[in-house]
């Protein structure tokens, strides 16, 4: 037997191995999802019922899902903020050409629901900041934010609407860390932030549907915890709600001055949910409402006075 004989034998065995493996794989994976579909569906949240059903029963596709999820790229809040700034004509040169191209593609071509919603939250703040007209202050005005990179259900290998669901999911982009967990009293968001400026003491927590709609919005005032740490908590869903499935969690720490008339509708229900899960909530809200009464527009006064009464 010479080298050539060995090589020929190896090749023959290898071709047989590949053929057998291909046949087996073709049968086993006939109904598996195509790889690019995972990426599109994770960004757009448009999973079909059949795809969900298949994912639930196929460990190979669940492994693929977790890999695609791990490599999924989202722009940072800073990149989205400066992209908006360029769009509004107040910021230039904060993004490289490469960053601008990727952010634009992510929003326009990929239609990432998560980032489109973040832009929706940031836009009024960016517009207000732009109105002030000072480029340097625009650059500094980006509020601390955190958001889950994938929907809540994908925080682990679980899948929306199925058993053994994700019960805890975390998101962190310094200085804000947010944790959504199923507790005895319901689905509770707990947030902590470091070195918050006083005027940024109001958190807005949104749960966003795959279509980009806000399913739930809660406001919560931060309380000083220890050293430079601030904390807050609120309940977003009752305990009998089995899973938060396809929803994204987006959290932003906003300046209290940013509240507008529309936000007032959310304040009263938010207060009740904060008091239910956070022992520090009453004091924090009293401080916050007092500050809003000092700086808020007159149209807010009636609602704020009612909240103040509730708190006393």
């Amino acid at each position, binding site marked *: 037997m*010479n080298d050539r004989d060995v090589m020929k034998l190896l*090749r023959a065995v290898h071709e047989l191995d590949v053929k057998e493996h291909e046949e087996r794989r073709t049968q086993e994976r006939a109904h598996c999802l195509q790889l*690019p579909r995972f990426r599109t569906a994770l960004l757009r949240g448009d999973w079909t019922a059949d795809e969900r059903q298949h994912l639930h029963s196929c460990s190979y596709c669940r492994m693929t899902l977790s890999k695609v999820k791990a490599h999924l790229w989202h722009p940072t809040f800073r990149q989205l903020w400066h992209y908006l700034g360029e769009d509004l004509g107040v910021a230039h040169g904060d993004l490289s050409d490469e960053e601008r191209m990727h952010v634009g593609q992510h929003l326009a071509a990929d239609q990432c629901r998560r980032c489109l919603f973040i832009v929706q939250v940031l836009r009024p703040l960016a517009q207000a900041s732009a109105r002030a007209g000072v480029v340097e202050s625009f650059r500094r005005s980006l509020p601390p934010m955190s958001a889950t990179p994938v929907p809540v259900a994908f925080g682990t290998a679980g899948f929306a609407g199925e058993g053994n669901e994700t019960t805890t999911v975390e998101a962190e982009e310094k200085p804000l860390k947010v944790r959504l967990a199923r507790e005895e009293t319901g689905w509770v968001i707990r947030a902590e932030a470091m070195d918050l400026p006083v005027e940024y003491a109001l958190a807005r927590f949104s749960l966003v549907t795959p279509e980009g709609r806000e399913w739930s919005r809660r406001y919560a005032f931060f309380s000083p915890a220890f050293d430079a740490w601030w904390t807050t908590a609120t309940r977003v869903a009752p305990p009998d709600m089995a899973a938060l499935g396809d929803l994204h969690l987006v959290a932003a720490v906003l300046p209290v001055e940013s509240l507008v008339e529309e936000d007032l509708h959310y304040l009263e229900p938010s207060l009740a949910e904060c008091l239910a899960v956070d022992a520090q909530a009453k004091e924090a809200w009293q401080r916050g409402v007092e500050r809003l009464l000092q700086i808020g527009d007159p149209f807010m006064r009636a609602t704020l006075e009612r909240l103040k009464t509730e708190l006393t």
Partner: protein
Amino acid sequence: MFTGIDRLRAPEGTWVDARQADHELIADYYACHDERFSELHHRYSARLEGFLRVSGLSQSEAEDLAQEVWVRIMNTKYPSPGSRARAYNPQAGASFRTWLFTISKRLLLDAMRRQGRTITFSTLERGSQEEEGEPLEASLHVEEPSPEEEILTRQQQRDVHECMNRLPPRERIAVALWLETEGVMTLQDLANMLEVSVATAHRVLRRAFELIRECLEQRGPRES
């Protein structure tokens, strides 16, 4: 599988030429035809897993790492700022297949390193053209096995697997790469994939074939 079939239905319901070259498929994928990526995936999925298995991974490790490779290749269409991933560029000279298996080999070595199994081809570098034993031909091409040769017994298949499994990891990876490129590459191609000199690539492969031959001869002739 599309042996003998010129055209097949792609997942999206469009018709694609089964003989479309790899570099055309990936170029189409980059130009927004996701179904072309699925075609490449279908074409090489079993081969890639086979390469990883032959290189010493278990079945589940091979599946896992193969998916990692595919996800990375898929994402070369969507590079993020600062990402090192680069799209396939045929102008760079390597075929898509060589590019695919070079990426796979790198991830394989990374995975082995994480398991505490360090494999370094460059330790064989001696800075000279010193050869051991008879030189292999510059081209590692071997002709397709004849129909008679293709009739292998299960015993022969098992013997070859057994002898491959006995190879040291470095030699095993070199043979696995050679096998997955269907024997059409040159020593220079193999050296590029292993990221070593031609002399070292030659030495590794030569030793591997010798070890396999010795192993097969020890096991004795088999009836086919």
